[in-house]
């Protein structure tokens, strides 16, 4: 069996940044396994701009952002295999992968970084009544057709869900000559970024219909229309508000799900809310030496943050392989009052740590309060919080060292 110190599963933004960070921290025996024919992951089809402002101080498109890392991978001589699908990972860190040239490989890794990204919630999960014609795509599938293949999957489009990919595709298909008739959002607020609502919908006069959903799909061979309806506070469609919209395409942008089949297969402890692994501040999972970062861990708003998190995981994998120890603590981070989840979920080492979190609803004028028991560690006022926008709080090494063990809560208060 081939032995490799560090295997990175996934050659998208998370996998590449993690590999680069690990390499720079001294790991030279490493290997990236990527299932697509190129490095870059989903960024290759995200041809719009808005990436890298945080990381590189300039506005890049997806392919340009990916190229920054792909260039580094190549310059550093980090080995990678594309067209290679990982089909299994064991608790003992044996990776099974397959590609056309090597066939089925078994690789014994000392450390693994999971960076498989996420996938879109499919139609089945939405249970929309009606027929099953052609013309129903997730926004990401449509994006691949338009941007990578150069084909138009639709001419008259209704979009269900106001996730960012859906908003981006509303603009993209409009620019390519399609008519986007409406974007329906089940919730009373959009899960997408405000700037995308502005420049992808408002710029083109595309209506965003909040508290609306698609209740019926029509059409035998190809979609011929959808029936939409307003929903009540309990998100049940209101019959009297039903209206028919003729269209040939329904795009779904109803959320992203971390793709963790391999993680679960390895028996790693999962977080029910994030859909990703439970990790500590270094992004180490319940199996020592197995790390996770990027959208496989929790869905991020910005690729810049994915890179940041991947660097943490890459450096931590290097530390793990070098057997570096730091001051141990045993702290659980617990989301309370209005906070849905945190990443990391636990802290095992006293070092400066940024905790990412998402809130469960849209809130205005709240305080983000970090506490340990009754002791308030920090207390910061926020004018607006929304589920679509990831928030952070910083915990210092000093605070964590003092605390040593216990539970830190992060919650919203008046």
């Amino acid at each position: 069996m081939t032995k490799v110190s560090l295997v990175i599963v996934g050659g998208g933004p998370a996998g590449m940044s993690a590999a680069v960070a690990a390499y720079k921290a001294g790991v030279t025996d490493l290997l990236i396994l990527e299932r697509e024919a190129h490095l870059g992951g989903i960024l290759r089809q995200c041809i719009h701009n808005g990436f890298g402002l945080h990381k590189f101080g300039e506005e890049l498109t997806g392919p340009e952002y990916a190229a920054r890392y792909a260039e580094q991978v190549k310059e550093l001589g980090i080995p990678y295999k594309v067209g290679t699908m990982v089909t299994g990972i064991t608790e003992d860190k044996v990776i099974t992968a397959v590609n056309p040239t090597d066939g089925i490989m078994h690789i014994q890794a000392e450390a693994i970084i999971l960076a498989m990204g996420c996938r879109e919630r499919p139609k089945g999960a939405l249970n929309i009544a009606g027929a099953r014609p052609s013309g129903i795509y997730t926004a990401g599938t449509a994006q691949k057709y338009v941007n990578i293949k150069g084909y138009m999957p639709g001419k008259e489009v209704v979009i269900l869900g106001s996730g960012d990919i859906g908003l981006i595709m509303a603009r993209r298909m409009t620019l390519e000559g399609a008519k986007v008739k409406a974007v329906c959002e089940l919730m009373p607020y959009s899960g997408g970024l405000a700037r995308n609502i502005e420049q992808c919908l408002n710029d083109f006069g595309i209506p965003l219909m909040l508290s609306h959903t698609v209740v019926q799909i029509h059409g035998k061979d190809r979609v011929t229309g959808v029936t939409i309806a307003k929903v009540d506070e309990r998100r049940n469609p209101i019959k009297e508000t039903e209206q028919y919209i003729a269209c040939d395409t329904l795009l779904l942008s109803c959320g992203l799900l971390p793709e963790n089949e391999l993680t679960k297969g390895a028996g790693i402890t999962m977080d029910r809310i994030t859909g990703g692994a439970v990790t500590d501040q270094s992004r180490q999972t319940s199996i020592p030496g197995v790390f996770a970062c990027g959208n496989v861990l929790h869905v991020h708003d910005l690729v810049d943050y994915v890179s940041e998190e991947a660097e943490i995981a890459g450096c931590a994998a290097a530390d793990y392989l070098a057997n570096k120890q730091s001051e141990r603590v045993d702290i659980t981070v617990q989301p309370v009052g209005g906070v849905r989840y945190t990443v990391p979920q636990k802290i095992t080492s006293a070092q400066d740590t940024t905790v990412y979190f998402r809130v469960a609803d849209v809130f205005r004028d709240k305080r983000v309060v970090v506490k340990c028991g009754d002791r308030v560690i920090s207390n910061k006022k926020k004018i607006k919080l929304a589920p679509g926008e990831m928030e952070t709080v910083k915990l210092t090494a000093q605070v964590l060292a003092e605390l040593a063990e216990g539970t830190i809560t992060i919650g919203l208060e008046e």
Partner: protein
Amino acid sequence: MENKREMTCIICPRGCTLTVELEDKKVLGVKGNACKRGTDYAVAECTAPTRTLTTTVMTESGEVVAVKSNKAVPKELLFDCMKEINACVAPATVKQGDVVISNLLGTGADIVVTSYVE
């Protein structure tokens, strides 16, 4: 005439809500922006809005490659720009950074390849 206009800044993903004080089309003041770029955006948006255009271009091999305008173009010209870009066929060998159309419709913006192939 003096009035107020609310807008979402699209310069960065932060998406600040800006309140712009206007007299006719002249911007008197901008509030709500977290950085200086917000003011510039608000002024441009109220006087001559522009957008960075990202799309694809056909190459001689029949495939498409991703492109962007290397500076923002007037918003009202977006569809005219698309027409121009759709009529363009780039050489099959283009790589990231290559200009496939220079000074698109006299806007001063070049159309530059963004696709990357290792």
